[in-house]
Structure formats: structure tokens, C-alpha cells
């Protein structure tokens, strides 16, 4: 079951049916929040649905504080849509709240405008042509309207300010809309302010998919994986980047920036081909699996470390662990030389993690190609009617999906490992490296098996799938922060 791809909030009919027949949870009586470290409850909403959600908050606040909906909107937008906090602060000191929310001027007394000369266009008008905000700054309606149009044309909406110099009071929506005459500008204003509202609302995120209109809503504000049901884009709900468990949002950003800066060197150093460690024939990697078998001499070795694969298959898999050069401190008495050595060691260390990160990313793509080849092979076999049907082969696609999911997590363990390796206080580094190595070994095993699968291998592969997923979940449970407070620590 892929909980992160499921939506728990709608499909009531399905839920009812599940209740009737009794689902897994009924039998085991387990709470997915506790057992699945990636459990994430969210819903995909349309623009209209989100508008409804926002309007309900606005109505509630405007009723309980007896203020116009327009002012309620300003308050909510300035306070990240936290109605309870706003109501408490309003009861505590309404004036303070209105000043800090830039609804009222902090200068206290209203500026009485006596002349009928607009200070912006320097023209006289009759009294009814003037409009002022709560701060008392008064200008003619023509100037206000021009001000609004120019601001909207610059993409500004909820943050449109009073025209007076140094005055921070915000212009409420009803005034803006009442003075903008052109329908296109009104539409733009509504569009921009909707974007501002969604961005200031902690529970809402625009789907990052290209041209996708979906807005994801969740009350769980942690760095979990959200998948858009319309365009299938997956992303981290907290930071909006690609999902990155077990690495946290801050670290993955640091890592991606570092890779963008340094990858030229890394690319240069890690070429696409390697020589067989035994017969030295040049080998190009054309599948995702890192367990290589030389076509020439049949030597089994690991693509990453070029060591004999036998040492990986045994109880301890060491390829994912970076070994510090133990002699580095003693190698040179010369300080200059030492600095040089340390710099070289730092680069080597970074490249160690970068190569593995990059390699798993490539493997993910190559395994996609492997799957295509498998499909063709299966097609052939089924068509020839060699004792197998389509149904017999379906398990292999499930296996390939799971392999991709596991390898994705494995890829994102490397930035975590890189930064953990720099932190000498990290006491759980050994445990992490152990679990990472275990996961890596099982994934390569699964990949190897999938590439060579027959229908008869089903039991073995399903067993291996189970092991992989368990390893993955164990690692995530131990190292992936599940609450936002953990994240920032």
C-alpha cells in the first residue's frame, strides 16, 4: 500500500466499503501515523474550493469581530490566517493589533485634510471626489485609481499602501475594487491577491507542476511528500522542492547549491565509463544495477567502489561508507602541505558523496529504461504463449515501482550522510551508515533480480521487495524528522 499516494479525505464511498469488508488497519489495528514515517494526510483542491475555504475564514472573523470582510482579509493575510490568534489579540488590545496589521496609522491622531487640493495631481476638486483611508490621508479618487492600476501592473495587490510619503497603512480590498474601473485590472488584482492569500496561508501550497492549478492543503506542516493528483508532481510540502527524505529541508538546499557550484569538477572527474578491475576492458554502464558482471572476463564487481562484489554480498556492505584517510594528520609536518592535503581530502570526500548521489539518480533513469525493455520481453513471451499470461507478470511492475521508490530514498541519504560526516558530534553517524549500507545492498540485490526475472522468480522477488521496503522504512523512522520542531533543531 502506498499511503503517500492516497488521499484519505474524500472517496467516502470507498471508505465505507473498506469499513464493511474490513481493511488491513482493522485487522492489525495500527495507526499509520505511527507505523509509516512517510504518512501524510492532505487534499488536492481547486481554486474555487480554496476560495470557499478562505471566504469561510473571512466570514467567521468578520462576524466575530464585527468588522468588514475586507478588513478581516487584511488581518488574516497579515497574520497567516490564524483566526484564533487574531481574535485573542483583538480582545487584548484592538488598537495595537490594527496598527501592527497596518490597518490603522500608528501616529494616533487623524490628519485632517482641510484644503480641496489633491496633493498628488495638484488640482482642486469638490469634497465628494476625495477619499481617505483610516490614517486620514486624503487624495482625489482619480489619483487613487491611477495609483491602484500602476501597483497592480507591478504585481502588487494586498500590499498596496497609502499614497502619503512614509505611511504604511494598507488599502483594503473593497476600496481598491470600488475604484478600479477596467475589468482586466480588476481580474489581475483578484488573481494576485488570491496568490498572496494562498502564500500566507500555512496549510496551502500551490502545486509546483507546470501550469497546474491545483492547491494542496494539509494540516501537517512537516516535510512530507505531497503528490498532485492532477499532474502527478511530487514535492516536499514544507519547502516545495523535490521530496528529499531522510535529508531535511535546510540541508538539501545547502547540498543542491553546493552541487550546482561544484558539479563541473565532479562531472569532469566522474566519467561515464570505467575499466573492469580485473581485465581492464572499458565498460559503459547501461542498467541501474551497480552489481556489474564484466562481459569479457565474467568478473563480478561493484560499479561504485570497483571491489569484488563478493565482499558486498556478505554480511557487511561497506561501499556507501566514506573512509577517512587515517594518515592525513601524520603525513606532513609542513603546515602548508597540510592545508593542501586537507583541501584535497575535503574535495575527495565531497566527490565520494556526490558520485553516489549522481549515480543513483542515473540508476533511477536507467531502471526506467530497463523496465521498458522488460515490457517488450514480457510482451514477446506472452504473445508466444509460453506458459505465462499478462497477470503472471504484473508483479514485476509493482517490483519496479518499489525499486524506484527505494532508490530515490537511497539517493537522498547521501546529502544527509555528507553533512553528518562533517559533524563530529553526530553520535548516530555509525548507525546511519550501517542502515544506509544495508538499504543499498538490498536495493542492488532487488535491481539485479528484476533485470533477470522470470515468472518463477516471483516469490523470491516479492521477498526481496519486502526486505527493501522494510530497510527503507527503518532508516526513515530512525532518521527522518517527523515533526516540524525536529526539523529546525
Amino acid at each position, binding site marked *: 500500500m502506498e499511503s503517500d499516494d492516497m488521499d484519505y479525505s474524500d472517496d467516502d464511498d470507498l471508505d465505507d466499503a473498506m469499513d464493511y469488508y474490513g481493511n488491513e488497519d482493522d485487522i492489525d489495528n495500527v495507526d499509520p501515523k505511527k507505523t509509516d514515517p512517510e504518512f501524510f494526510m492532505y487534499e488536492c483542491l481547486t481554486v474555487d474550493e480554496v476560495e470557499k475555504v478562505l471566504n469561510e475564514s473571512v466570514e467567521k472573523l468578520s462576524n466575530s469581530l464585527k468588522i468588514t470582510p475586507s478588513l478581516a482579509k487584511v488581518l488574516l493575510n497579515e497574520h497567516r490566517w490564524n483566526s484564533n490568534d487574531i481574535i485573542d489579540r483583538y480582545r487584548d488590545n484592538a488598537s495595537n493589533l490594527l496598527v501592527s496589521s497596518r490597518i490603522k496609522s500608528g501616529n494616533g491622531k487623524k490628519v485632517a485634510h482641510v484644503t480641496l487640493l489633491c496633493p498628488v495631481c495638484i488640482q482642486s476638486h469638490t469634497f465628494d471626489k476625495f477619499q481617505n483611508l483610516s490614517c486620514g490621508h486624503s487624495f482625489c479618487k482619480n489619483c487613487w485609481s491611477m495609483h491602484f492600476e500602476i501597483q497592480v501592473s507591478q504585481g502588487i495587490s494586498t500590499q498596496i499602501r497609502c499614497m*502619503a510619503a512614509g505611511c504604511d497603512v494598507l488599502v483594503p480590498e473593497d476600496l481598491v475594487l470600488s475604484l478600479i474601473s477596467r475589468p482586466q485590472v480588476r481580474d489581475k488584482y483578484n488573481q494576485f491577491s488570491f496568490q498572496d492569500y494562498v502564500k500566507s496561508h500555512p496549510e496551502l501550497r500551490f502545486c509546483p507542476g507546470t501550469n497546474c492549478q491545483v492547491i494542496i492543503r494539509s494540516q501537517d506542516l512537516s516535510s512530507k511528500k505531497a503528490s498532485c493528483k492532477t499532474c502527478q508532481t511530487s514535492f516536499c510540502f514544507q519547502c516545495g522542492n523535490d521530496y528529499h527524505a531522510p535529508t531535511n529541508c535546510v540541508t538539501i538546499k545547502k547540498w543542491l547549491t553546493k552541487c550546482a557550484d561544484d558539479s563541473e569538477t565532479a562531472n569532469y572527474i566522474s566519467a561515464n565509463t570505467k575499466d573492469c578491475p580485473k581485465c581492464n576492458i572499458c565498460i559503459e554502464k547501461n542498467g541501474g544495477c551497480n552489481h556489474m558482471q564484466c562481459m569479457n572476463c565474467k568478473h563480478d564487481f561493484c560499479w561504485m567502489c570497483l571491489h569484488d562484489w563478493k565482499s558486498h554480498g556478505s554480511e557487511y556492505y561497506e561501499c556507501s561508507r566514506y573512509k577517512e584517510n587515517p594518515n592525513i594528520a601524520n603525513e606532513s609536518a609542513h603546515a602548508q602541505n597540510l592545508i593542501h592535503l586537507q583541501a584535497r581530502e575535503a574535495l575527495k570526500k565531497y566527490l565520494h558523496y556526490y558520485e553516489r548521489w549522481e549515480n543513483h539518480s542515473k540508476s533511477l533513469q536507467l531502471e526506467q529504461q530497463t523496465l521498458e525493455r522488460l515490457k517488450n520481453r514480457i510482451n514477446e513471451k506472452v504473445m508466444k504463449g509460453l506458459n505465462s499470461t499478462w497477470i503472471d507478470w504484473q508483479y514485476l511492475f509493482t517490483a519496479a515501482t518499489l525499486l524506484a521508490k527505494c532508490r530515490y530514498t537511497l539517493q537522498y541519504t547521501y546529502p544527509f550522510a555528507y553533512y553528518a560526516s562533517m559533524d563530529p558530534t553526530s553520535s548516530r553517524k555509525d548507525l546511519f551508515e550501517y542502515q544506509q549500507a544495508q538499504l543499498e545492498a538490498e536495493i542492488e540485490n532487488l535491481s539485479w533480480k528484476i533485470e533477470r526475472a522470470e515468472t518463477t522468480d516471483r516469490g523470491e522477488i516479492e521477498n526481496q521487495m519486502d526486505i527493501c521496503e522494510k530497510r527503507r522504512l527503518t532508516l526513515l523512522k530512525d532518521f527522518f524528522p517527523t515533526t516540524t520542531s525536529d526539523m529546525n533543531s
Partner: protein
Amino acid sequence: MAALPRRIIKETQRLMQEPVPGISAVPDESNARYFHVIVTGPEDSPFEGGLFKLELFLPEDYPMSAPKVRFITKIYHPNIDRLGRICLDILKDKWSPALQIRTVLLSIQALLSAPNPDDPLANDVAELWKVNEAEAIRNAKEWTQRYAMEDN
């Protein structure tokens, strides 16, 4: 070209009739939205004695949008870059349609008296201004001498 708004006419008239001390702003003969500006370096600043030429342009949507101002004379100042562009909040996000040409020019004059190296536009200048103010001021005086004195 559209008729000149009353606001610009009024401002220009007032600039000519009651000029700001130390500042002269004259509209171009062929374009009433383009001003030739000269600001004298404020007393007790490294720019004292210098005459700094600037250009000021009022865009189509002025006063809803800020005027565009640039130093033409080279100047050694942490908030003014090699192209003469000025880092000043009221020319950007703090612009208000109630501000005027005269208030903008006064603010620029004030910026010469009080450089702000914490909000730099010219990074190398700002850096020196922070770590070795004496040397930075010496440079500013030298540049004033070299580029902003009348006999040059």
C-alpha cells in the same frame, strides 16, 4: 506627445521660482520630463566643493511611479555605483506619489552627507568604507577633486 500633467508643470514652476539651496534642476529644452540637475557637495562631507551633475527623468506614469535619477559625474560613494545608479529606498519600494522632484533631490543631497555602507550598491566602496573609513573618505575627496571640481 500627451499634454504635460498639471502636476509636472506646477513642480517645474516651483523649482524655478523657489530653488532648493545647493540644487539646480532645469528641464531640457526639448523634453519637459527630462531634467539637468546639479547638486553641490554638502559642507563637512568628502564631497564638499564638488559640483555633481545628475539626470532626472519623469516616467509616463509619474507621480504614480518614481522618477529615474542617475549621477553623471563620477562619485566615490557606497550607495552609488560606477554607472551612477543610486541606492535609495524612496526611488524604489518606498516611493510615494506625494513625494516630489524637490524631495527626491534633497534626499540625494542628504545621502551625500550620510553614506550608508550597510546598504551598499557599490560593494568594494562599501567594504572599504566599513573597514577603513579614513582611506575611503580620502578616496572620495580625491575623486571629488578629480571629477567634480569646476576647473576640470
